């Protein structure tokens, strides 16, 4: 399944790329795109794993860009 989040305040293209790279290295992530232009993040993972994946992904975002707010879409 896929989930989309909005990363409010994401304003650096390189950080977007970094977030995407790190999340794609997380276990159980099937695919992830972080789009700098729409400031949206799409995560794909197995339904059962989704919760833990999202939790880990949030940590990555917070870690790289502490000022970014993550909102569900």
């Amino acid at each position, binding site marked *: 399944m896929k989930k989309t989040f*909005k990363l*409010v305040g994401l*304003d*650096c*293209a*390189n*950080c977007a*790329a*970094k977030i*995407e*790279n790190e999340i794609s290295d997380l276990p159980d992530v099937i695919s992830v*795109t972080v*789009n*700098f*232009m*729409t400031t*949206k993040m*799409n995560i794909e993972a197995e339904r059962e794993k989704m919760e833990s994946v999202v939790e880990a992904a949030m940590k990555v975002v917070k*870690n*790289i860009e*502490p000022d970014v707010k993550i909102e569900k*879409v």
Partner: protein
Amino acid sequence: MKRLESFEKKHDDYSHIKKDDEICSCCSCIQSEDFFNEIEEEEQFDLREFRGEIRFLIFMGVLFAICLITEEFFSEYVHSYLLNAAFLSLYLVCGLPVLKMAFRSLIKKDFFNEFTLMGGASLAAVAIGQMSESVGVMIFYRLGEAFQKKASSYSRRSIKALLAQKPMLARLLKDGKVENINPKDIVKGDIVQVLPGEVIPIDGIIISGVAQINSSAITGESKPVSAKVGTAVYGGTLSLDGLLTIKAAGPFKDSTISRMLEMVQNAVAHKSPTERFITRFAKWYTPAVFGLATLVALVPPLIGQGDFREWFYRGLVLLVISCPCALVISIPLGFFGGIGSASKKGILVKGANVFDALDKVTMAVFDKTGTLTYGRFEVVKILPLTGITEGDLLRMAATAETGSNHPLARSILAAAGNITMPLNAQVTQFAGKGMLLKTDLDTIIVGSKALLQDYGITAPSISELGTVVHVAKNDKYQGYLIVADSIREESYQSVKELRELGIKKVYMLTGDCEAVAKSVSDKLGLDGYRSELLPGDKVAALKSLCGGETKKTLFVGDGINDGPVLVTSETGIAMGGFGSQVAIEVADVVILNDSLLKVAELLRVAKKTRTIVWQNVFMAMGVKGVFLVFGAVGVAGLWEAVFADVGVALMAILNSTRTSKV
């Protein structure tokens, strides 16, 4: 008095809306749903932030200039400690946010990002006593960042503007009363009234009224079309003059405009290989330059080639240049502009990857019916016997067909215009053969040669493309009509333009018979075709036509029964995407109106977008490369380095805005 009432009523309408949504400046539309609201808010915020930042930086710049002038001309009057303290405090005020971010990332063991690089370089400059330089670096760095932010938000806004014409209210007709509701609350079958000059709130069918409809907001087609009872209209289009009553085809979320919004929102989820390449490049570029900077700072002094401070300073210059953001930002901005530009022309592109894929495309495969041809039957020829006019023959045939619903009959009736069934007529329908109509005066038989034969009438054998419809009246042969699906006018032009744009082979797939396929193919000058295909055969036919190289093909179909083919080809383009949900799901590109010329248009936009993106890449790399050398040999200082970094980012951004003007 009445006018006043209606005026007040109008105001009521708006106040009703204002409760939950904000009216945009053009006042005939509203940014109600998530995407727009978000962007709108962000934009306001961005703009405030941008202005604040610029004011702050100008103020700092003035103070900085005063300090510089003092240092230059009045240094004998001011103690150097005092001057240094002034520079230092300016540096701290300007650089604090950057230093804070740099510190935070260092704690997280992230050593290579713009903050650590800029912060580190400027701090090191302070350490070796280059006070004014470090302040300058900070001010210019922040100025550049502010403009970058502004540019991305501008680019987002341009996409938004293109779909801005969202319907803001619907006048629901219920029990003879008009009720103003949010379009989102419309359900299937609701009757909605649209006043002249208003945006049609929902997809539906006109049940009363006539109007000129302008659909430029959605399809990019600026010529208004006239609509009457029975015409399908789409939410987001504009009724220019008439009062219309519309029956909603479904809820708002299923309407074309709503689906389009969704598609554009998700458009950028598919990244292009170019973008991936650059992010990968940036990943090693920064550490590599950092390594180089370290070498430059340490090696020459260690082997006794000059002053440590001099080489250390050169290392710092390299650090500033190693900042990857200019490189990384220029790509998505360019593609985003391209997607926006295509959308403005009524071409929805699902992702930046399409632009890259189109680069490799050398073969185009078209579906025939509904794509190269109009997909509807038309009377293309009328051949009466001598002594009978074409009009008479057509009317005769049409009279007999009044009772039939067959597509052929419909096309003859449409060609004849206003024909009604005569009184006391007896109609007999022969399935697959034709019609017989008997009145007190005449007997008319319309249909195949075989049908006429059954009634003892001899019809000539005609070998022409299309369906031959013979006409006989009172046992006498009168002539025949040819009904066929005609080639779109723009098909010729479209094929020609595609060839000019580097498409080497143009093919066609069709379920139609060999003779028709050959005729269409010959007329259009195609390189080949496959005929008599069942929907399931099309994928195999596509593969065999392009010799298995589906990576190099684009396929254009109507999206109704082409789903698998749209997926198989590298770039699947669905035409007339207005109606079809399937098309939107499986196609890579949806052409909203029915014009085949948009395929060539898409290729042009893709080409231009790619050009601009690569210009940006080369420009960014080139400028950085040159300044790396200049920095290493000591020609360029920190000032030049920061100009190079910020300047090249701004140039890339400006260049990217060109894509939206293709």
